[in-house]
């Protein structure tokens, strides 16, 4: 999952970034509204954490511009402006969630998880496909109830695929959502990761769609 952090306070942005990294997210940071808007406009993000009081262009304008350009990624406003009038206006501008500063990191992470899950059309915090369960709250994966150990990169990949189960995901899309913008995009590494995950899960839920990419699908007769 790739997250855009738009926050002008460098220290706070760094803290959020560190916590997102620990939680298994990939992230990009912008420190002003213009840069934030540009990144959101050009890169595919799974969610945006957006401050309202930003230099050059304020957060509400950034958000309105994205929505006017039909950018649909979920946006969480993170701001010191915590009056209910501000909240109503922020949500009216097209935000999907609103968190007031000062905040507890756990709450930010919980809200972010739920936001990504909901925007992918998942209602439960535990994603289930066949015998595989992925608990978004604690990043645990089980097959038939027994825990499976995945590396951080493997978990990111599986998590992205399971959030979008039933859909064909191209290797490019996977690369974009798992690595940050400076990563050297070599799609062969994706293939290596997918094969490792398949071995560890021992349950054939990742289908290869020739020439297009991968799809999460469980067919009972495979069991």
């Amino acid at each position, binding site marked *: 999952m790739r997250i855009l952090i738009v926050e002008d306070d460098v220290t*706070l942005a760094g*803290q959020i970034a560190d916590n997102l990294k620990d939680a298994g997210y990939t992230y990009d940071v912008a420190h002003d509204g213009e840069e934030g808007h540009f990144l959101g406009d050009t890169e595919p993000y799974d969610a945006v954490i957006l401050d309202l009081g930003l230099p050059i262009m304020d957060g509400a304008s950034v958000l309105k511009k994205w929505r006017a350009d039909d950018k649909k990624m979920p946006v969480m406003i993170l701001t010191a402006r915590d009056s209910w009038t501000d909240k*109503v206006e922020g*949500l009216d501008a097209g935000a*999907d969630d609103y968190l007031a*500063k*000062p905040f507890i990191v756990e709450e930010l992470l919980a809200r972010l998880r739920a936001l990504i899950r909901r925007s992918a059309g998942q209602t439960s915090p535990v994603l289930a496909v066949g015998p595989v369960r992925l608990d978004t709250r604690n990043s645990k994966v089980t097959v038939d109830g027994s825990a499976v150990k995945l590396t951080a990169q493997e978990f990111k990949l599986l998590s992205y695929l399971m959030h979008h189960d039933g859909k064909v995901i191209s290797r490019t899309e996977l690369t974009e959502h798992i690595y940050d913008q400076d990563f050297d995009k070599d799609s062969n590494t994706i293939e290596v990761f997918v094969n490792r995950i398949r071995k560890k899960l021992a349950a054939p839920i990742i289908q290869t769609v020739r020439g297009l990419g991968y799809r999460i699908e469980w067919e009972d007769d495979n069991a």
Partner: protein
Amino acid sequence: MNPSDNNGSSEPSQTVEPDAGRAARFIGSLTGRLVMSAVVWSFVALVVGGFVLSFAFRSYVLTDVDKRLELLLDTLVGISEVSPEGEFRFNQPLADQRFLTPYSGWYWQVSAEGAEPLRSRSLWDFALDARHEQRSFSLRYSIAAGPDGQQLRLAEHDIILPEAEQVFHYQIATNMAEVQAAINRFNWLLVSALALILFTVTLALVLQVSYGLRPLRQIKRDLGDVRAGRAARLASADDPKLPQDLKPLVEEINGLIDQNHKLVQRARTHVGNLAHALKTPLSVIQNSVDGDDSERGETIARHTKEIRVHVDHHLKRARIAGGGTGVGLPVCDRIKKLANAVAVIAGDKQLAMSVDCDSGLMFDGEKEDFDELLGNILDNAAKWAASKVEVTVVRLDQGLRRPMLEIQVSDDGPGVPADKRDSMFDRGQRLDEQMPGTGLGLAIVRDIADMYGGNVKLSTAPLGGLGVRLLLPAK
């Protein structure tokens, strides 16, 4: 500047002495001062005029009496003669009935030194004081005592008759009672007429002053409207009937109101900016000690939380405008928007929020205040509800000083026991530490409701959870 303030502060003395208080207030008022000073001057002028008139009338009447006395004295002298034998007599009778009837009020007396004086019959057994020692050969007027206790106007003259060697002292007098009665009648009439004039003038003054001051009273009412939030500025400014000389005053007051509004806005913005500016560094501090179990880390975390509570409290207090806008806020749309925001922020919780509300209902106050009231109540309800939150709004007109909106929010959560409900309004009080929030929500709800002259009450909702009943001024 603010008349209602002055009235307010003089209230206690009024309750002790209501009449004295009212009189003192009237004299202190502009109407009272104008009327009182005009009445005092009119009174002084009328009294002086009355004295002058009374004096003039009295001297006119006395002159008239004196003229008649002089005429009669001349007649008396004219018919006097001394006989060759040296005896004093009248050569014809003084045929006036008034000098014959005893004590009639008209008397004459002619006396010579060393002889029994001749007297009019009307004097009967009384003799006027001849006062020979004060001889005067010109006409003299004086007041003298007469018979029957009468007070007399006396004209006297010493005459030397041609054939005599003696000086005869002629005296002629009339009772002053008749004259005095005429003067008294006149004075009585004068006082009555002047009193009537004073009364009429006072009445006319009161009418004139109250008519003249009517625009000022209108301005006072307009100011009251501004203070009560029924109007944003003085309405008189747009009144074409407002006197030209009051226009600058009204415009100045409106300017002052605008400036005051701007100052309040600026102060609120400053507090808001300060509070907001503190929040980002607070987040940084809070996050940097997150998970630090050392004593130092916990101290920092605890105090950071305390700072946060203070910042939130004062930021929210600064935001409260607590007054009518004179415009009115459509309640239903706003509640629906807030319910939507609350539902979004509640996240995964599948909540059925129903709003039962007539779209014409208006709240007499600021949008920000209403948002804070309903946002906090709905947020609290959404946190605790199992699946349902219901909002109903009705307008109450009966038996209230002003129309109110009754907003009821109920949820199907666990509710709050009756003995713990009061403490829910305490600042920083959280009945369940598991739920996020600073525990300021309901405290600020009560603060705002109080500032609008409304109130908030907690009960057990029909749905089983907490019921919040909020009363707010309606527009």
